[in-house]
């Protein structure tokens, strides 16, 4: 029996008159990897921010393990600690060493002692293969390294689900591989993930389901095989074709 980790129910969001999300619904099950893709401006990033309430929706509901994040009684900061978030621009805490970026959450939010938090952080850094870089400050690290610290920061909170908002879009091409590799590793360990990305190789390797969004609605969903062999909707065909022209065939050059 699969448990639902996240339920998104008919979520709407508008900025003034610009409707960004127009009734999005889907469920994410334990251990599932969902890849969300679509043209820019389709509402993918907003959707992720709505899921952990960085941007509260106008209408609809988001549930984490059956508990509504919209409930005024709910302690939002507590619930948010269960939802990891990896940002396009890393957003590391600039004044903290890599290891402290990772341990500050367990220490301050989960209430671990400094030593426990340090151990948790070290293990998280090992997972992203950054354990030798713990004493560097973010500005001393490459983009790929910073993003791996960002992933470790989420992992250290032992979240129910991690949301990735175009984690490789701000990286130089040669740094993308190391980040995707880490994401593949944690996906294979059974981490529940919602990933907004155009890295189709990653999607093909680990996505359980792909969601194609355009203009604030889900246009088409399906397995990677479905999208790579016979996507149904006109817009998905068109968009996938454009990605192919840009990035070449959706073949994964990373070890899977």
């Amino acid at each position, binding site marked *: 029996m699969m448990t639902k980790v996240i339920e998104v129910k008919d979520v709407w969001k508008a900025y003034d008159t610009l409707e960004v999300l127009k009734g999005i619904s889907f469920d994410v099950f334990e251990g599932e990897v969902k890849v969300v893709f679509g043209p820019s401006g389709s509402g993918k990033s907003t959707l992720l921010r709505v899921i952990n309430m960085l941007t509260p929706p106008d209408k609809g509901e988001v549930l984490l393990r059956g508990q509504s994040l919209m409930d005024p009684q709910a302690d939002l900061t507590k619930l*948010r600690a269960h939802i990891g978030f990896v940002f396009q*621009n890393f957003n590391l*805490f600039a*004044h903290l060493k890599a290891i402290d970026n990772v341990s500050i*959450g367990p220490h*301050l939010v989960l209430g671990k002692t400094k030593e426990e938090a340090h151990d948790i952080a070290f293990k998280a850094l090992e997972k992203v293969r950054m354990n030798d870089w713990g004493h560097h400050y*973010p500005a*001393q690290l490459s983009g790929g390294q910073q993003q791996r610290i960002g992933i470790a920061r989420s992992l250290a*909170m032992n979240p129910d689900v991690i949301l990735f908002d175009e984690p490789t879009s701000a990286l130089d091409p040669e740094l993308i591989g190391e980040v995707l590799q880490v994401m593949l590793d944690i996906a294979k360990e059974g981490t529940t993930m919602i990933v907004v990305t155009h890295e189709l190789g990653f999607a093909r390797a680990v996505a359980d389901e792909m969601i194609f969004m355009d203009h604030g609605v889900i246009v088409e969903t399906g397995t990677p095989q479905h999208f790579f062999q016979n996507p149904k909707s006109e817009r998905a065909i068109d968009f996938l074709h454009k990605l192919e022209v840009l990035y070449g065939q959706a073949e994964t050059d990373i070890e899977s």
Partner: protein
Amino acid sequence: MRPTSPNQLIGMLQINRIVEYLPDLWNGLSMTMGLYLFALFLGLGLGIVLAIGRHYGGPIVSRISTAYIEFMRGTPLLAQILAITTLPLALNLDTSWRIILQDIFGTPRITVDITILLCAITLGLNSGAYQAEYFRGSMASISGGQTLAAKSIGMTKRQEIRHIALPQSLRRAIPAWSNEAVYLPKYTTVAYFVGVPDLFSAAKLAAGRTFQSLTVYSLVAVIFLVLITAISWILSRIYNRVKIPGI
């Protein structure tokens, strides 16, 4: 024209006549430093609180902070000091409270009285308004992304301000803030107008009695120059020590 000999120079400047007033000048300098340090640290605490209030406070707190800052920056410091130091007299309060201590030359001096205290507090209240703006500027320069990241790992607003925003903005503020730190010692000279025996008032006394204005004021200028150079140097040392590596 023959070159001036050192003895003649001493004669011209009549340094020997000023020596008699060195204890006054020394005590004046101590008073100035006392006013300065008190006002600087009072202003530092107040400035941080006001900046947080203005930057992070809700509509009410941020308006109160803004009103205070604009009022203190918008009215003359001298007027503020005159108004506040005459307050006890205007309200018919007892103004006889004072602490008299021996100075290093063994002469008893008034170290603190009601006027000196009020003067120091006013300087601090005024400086706090200026300092708040330095801190607010550096708070606004912290990327919004870090705030989102702090939220996303479940930090409360308070934790985010305390552990993410403040450590960075206070560091960043140091170079701009050093402006206030070197400006304030000179600003304290307005205390002279309400009769506080600071460095400037000691200089005024010595100049008035010896008629050696040029020498006395040059000496005061040199003292300030040394003081301010030292403050600048200390602050840039501190900044280099605490600045975030790699940025």
